[in-house]
């Protein structure tokens, strides 16, 4: 069977919990069309790293000490980054999810989502032709 080569999706992981970062790296590590290009433990580090590594997708935790995921998403939009943000939340922080989507995130995932859902969300966000306008 012939398979069309898919472009590699460059992913930046942002979460203040080391085990969560490690878990996400572990499941994405073996996926051919996904490459983890970095990980950050808070929003400020994520913004700096995104500027440096130019990811396609940022898996962004919402609740983090210092700059949280919503503010970091706003900053990425402000600096005109091409990265699309998929927010991660440990449970249904509906208001915060709404805020993150309003800030420019393209979708969200709960942290108890199965690995395939995470991968699907990354591919789906990467294939979206245009990032939604925040507001």
């Amino acid at each position: 069977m012939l398979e069309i080569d898919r472009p590699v999706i460059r992913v930046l992981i942002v979460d203040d919990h080391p085990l969560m970062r490690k878990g996400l790296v572990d499941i994405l590590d073996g996926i051919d069309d996904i490459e983890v290009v970095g990980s950050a433990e808070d929003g400020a580090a994520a913004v700096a790293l995104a500027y440096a590594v130019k990811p396609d997708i940022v898996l962004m935790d919402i609740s983090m000490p210092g700059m949280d995921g919503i503010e970091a998403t706003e900053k990425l939009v402000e600096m005109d980054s091409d990265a699309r943000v998929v927010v991660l939340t440990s449970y249904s922080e509906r208001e915060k999810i709404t805020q993150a989507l309003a800030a420019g995130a393209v979708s969200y995932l709960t942290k108890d989502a199965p690995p395939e859902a995470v991968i699907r969300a990354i591919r789906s966000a990467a294939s979206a032709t245009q990032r939604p306008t925040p507001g």
Partner: protein
Amino acid sequence: MQHLLPEEPRPTPVEYAAPLVVFVGLLGIVAVGLGIVTAAPVSDPLTLAVGAAVVFAAAYCSVRMTGGVDSVWTASVFVHLALTFTFGPPGAIVGAVAQGVATGARMKTGWFRAIFNTANYFLTDISAWLVFSTLLRLNHGVLWGACSATAAAVVECTVNTSLLSAVITLASRGKASGWMVFKRSMSSLILYNVGYGWAAYGAVLLHQVAGTVGFTTTLLPIILLQGFLVLLARRIKAQEKEREEHTQEREALLQQAIDASDAERKRIASDLHDGVVQRLAGLALSLAARGSAKVADPQLLEAADTLRSSVTDLRTLMIEIAPPDLAESGVDGALRKLLEPLPARGIEVEFDSAEETHLSADKTSLVFRVAQEAIRNVVNHSQATKVIAKLRFVDGMVTLQVDDNGKGFSTADRSRRREEGHVGLHLLNNAVEASSGRLSLTSEPGHGTSLMLQLPC
């Protein structure tokens, strides 16, 4: 003196409707006219003065209570009846004025009520005196005198109650039934008045025998009784106040305990959220990654699934122990959060919500607590595969309906569960009824369960 008496509310302002003003005005004119026509010098001004002073004191210190014991009892009525029987119209004038002034001073009734009250006292006393003096002319003897006094007292009560009923009906613009007021007042006052009549006749006899001393002697027991009743009223009032303070203190303590418990629940939920949940979720992903590596390990995949399921359980638990901020999310948002974990437990959810109306914080909390209990029962006991929740705001009512397709239960099941200590819904039902709402639960074995809450917004 004022601080020694039981506190009482001030009368409401008078609404000066024309028929009421005309009625009271006419009453005042008739009373003044009769007073002028019938006024005459008295042979024993000292006794009259003593009587007037006692009327004033007794009227000012009348036993009036709100709540607890309902009584407008005062010895002054007896004293001015005694003055009237002893001195005729001059006694009625002095008694009525003393009573009217004292009541006005104590109750701050205002000039309009004072005019009515004084005219009322005078006209009732003069009516009683007319009957008493007329009957005494027909026969002699103490027994006849007592019977005459009794008849006079009944007339006094009737005239007094009739005038009061008329003025209450006019003041209420016809909303209060004059006849009902008359019947109620007559039944509660007639025995007092008969007693007053006999006692007043006693005062007449003793005055004939021993002048001022004799007259005053009759007053003493009644004045002492009034003193005792005033003390009793004060004590009852103090106890009511103390009970009220205790209730408020208990409520404050209960609220503090609830607040402390809420804060502790939020802290636990926050700790779970920031710690265990994150670590377990990360671990589940790592395990899944290892389990689905090139050489798949089903045991690792199973462990990852178990961990993920534990994270889902923890999410449910977190919502259970620390409900979402209802003021922020509203009832609709809070219910969505409650329902969210259900699909992971294999329960299909249908949520239908209309546009939200403003609900007070306590009613929002009540709707949430009912929904929480309903959903907890669905998850823990129903074995349902589908839940339909509907939230509506119609005609000033919020309606919450939670239906499931579970195994249902019988009345006997419900009684058994209550005996086992599952009283969540029973307690909620009390809270709902206290808020003028209605909570109903219908179920049948094999046909699911339906819970319906209706609460005024």
